[in-house]
């Protein structure tokens, strides 16, 4: 009986060692597969890539640069500045004779840059703040989160405008202002995740082997947060773009000769009474389509990465 069993066991162990090792799927490969299964998200990703490519390749096809002035169209944009291939103004001109096509490209670059950099600042600050607060815990955690509560209750757009006026309007200030005021949500989310991670065995093991707290946070906690952080970062980008556009719409953000989607929409919106709808509609189309794409990609990423929904 025992002998028979022994034989069986040997057989089994042989089988096990001979059978092919099943290729495991990593979390990220799994997530990519799920993301690619989401049609809206994949299409949005392609469109967004096209928009980004356009903002870099577009200038090669431009007849007018963003600084040239078409004197013929100046002052009579409604009749001379229509979008046409003949004049080389694919998207028309504004009342100063500037080419909207080139301006939209410039605005796209600046808006996307503000979105990405603003989100990056928020991600770095928010992740560090949240993970430290959650990991250290206790009184430190309470104080740090109380600070976040207080900052969150402040109407940030008004304070941001106040800062822009006091420290001068520049793109750099805009980055700092938007980035510094937008990490709050991120830090809360990260803290919550850290709290659930910090009692796991692998953290205990790291503590037992004498890894320093800072190293535990950066090497063991943060990498495990990346999924959640990635999801909220993609949702932060359109948020940043919206915030920048809002400020630029009021004329308090990006200054000439630079421009952004918000500044272009503002200009277009101010001149619609003079029959130059193209001045509004082209930048608006880029703005709306890009935001759509970001939201769909964010949704797709959340479905793919957020462990809560599985």
């Amino acid at each position: 009986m025992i002998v028979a069993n022994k034989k069986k066991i040997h057989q089994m162990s042989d089988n096990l060692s001979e059978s092919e090792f099943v290729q495991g799927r990593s979390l990220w490969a799994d997530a990519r597969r799920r993301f690619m299964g989401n049609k809206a998200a994949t299409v949005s990703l392609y469109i967004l890539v096209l928009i980004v490519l356009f903002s870099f390749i577009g200038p090669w096809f431009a007849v007018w640069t963003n600084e040239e002035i078409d004197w013929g169209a100046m002052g009579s944009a409604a009749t001379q500045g229509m979008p046409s291939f003949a004049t080389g103004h694919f998207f028309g001109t504004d009342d100063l004779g500037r080419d909207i096509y080139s301006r939209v490209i410039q605005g796209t670059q600046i808006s996307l840059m503000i979105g990405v950099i603003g989100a990056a600042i928020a991600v770095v600050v928010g992740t560090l703040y949240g993970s430290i607060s959650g990991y250290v815990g206790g009184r430190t955690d309470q104080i740090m989160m109380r600070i976040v509560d207080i900052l969150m209750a402040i109407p940030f757009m008004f304070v941001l405008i106040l800062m822009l006026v006091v420290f001068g309007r520049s793109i750099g200030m805009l980055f700092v202002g938007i980035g510094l005021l937008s990490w709050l949500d991120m830090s809360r989310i990260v803290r919550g995740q850290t709290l659930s991670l910090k009692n796991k065995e692998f953290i205990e093991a790291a503590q037992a082997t004498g890894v320093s707290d800072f190293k535990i946070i950066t090497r063991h906690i943060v990498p495990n947060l990346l999924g959640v952080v990635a999801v909220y970062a993609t949702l932060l980008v359109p948020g940043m773009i919206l915030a920048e556009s809002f400020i630029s719409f009021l004329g308090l953000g990006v200054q000439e000769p630079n421009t952004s989607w918000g500044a272009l929409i503002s200009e277009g919106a101010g001149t619609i009474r003079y029959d130059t709808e193209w001045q509004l509609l082209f930048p608006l189309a880029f703005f709306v389509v890009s935001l759509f794409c970001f939201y769909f990609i964010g949704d797709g990423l959340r479905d793919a990465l957020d462990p809560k929904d599985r």
Partner: protein
Amino acid sequence: MLNYVIKRVGIAIPTMLILIILSFLLMHAAPGGPFTSDRPLPAQVLANIEAKYGLDQPLWRQMINYVWGVVTQFDFGPSFKYKDRTVNEIIAQGFPITLKYGFLSFIFAIGVGIPLGAIAAIRQNTWIDYLAVGVSIGAQVLPNFVMAPLLVIVFTLWLGWLPGGGWGGGSWEYLIMPVIALSTSYMASIARITRSSMLEVLNTNYIRTAKAKGLPTKTILLRHALKPSLLPVISYLGPAFVGLITGSVVIDIYFSTGGMGYFFVNSAMNRDYSVMMGITILVGFLTIMFSLVIDLLYAWVDPKIRY
């Protein structure tokens, strides 16, 4: 409950003080005083003016005076640009206008958003649901500064139905576009939140029990499903309020409605710091009060919260 109220108020008061002190210090970090101009004033005149506004005193003293004035009398001091007007007068002129269309926008966002989301959830996967979801996704990327010019193109330039701006004493035709432009994206968010939480609630066991008991659908929805599914909506009202009050700046600029936002941007352009500070603090006060009320309301409505 009382403990919770005390704790919650205990956060609100320091928040308010921090906001006041922060904006005061920001103002003083600004390069150049409020009376620095291209034509320098004679030293004696400048000294007199600064004495009049209390700018000759040490910074901490000025700050205490300012905070004291704001806290005890709601006095924001004089405007630095319009010598004959105080900040309070400017706010008193703009605030009622902002309040009127802001309140209407709030009502519109809730009054349309909640029913839209609820109907979409009840009739899940029908054309009503798809329409509601489509509208709410579309409106997400149509913030106020996009809606405003689009509305003007359609209703003023093409159709000629509505005036493209102005206040007109607050009569309805001047209110329609500002209210719609301001509230659309929040209406959409409220609809989306209502829909998803309603769907969740409709799948719970107690709703199934109610159905099994044979209660009429109307009773199930109104008595049992609506209240719990509104909880997430209530907690969204705080951010929505902040969004509306921030968005009112765009409305005031674009539609020339003459509310507080107009004075805010104007003073930002003119570096009229005291007006900016006054409006920022007022908005902060309203926001903090509102979120306090929302939190207390939430605690009162949600039976699951215990202290």
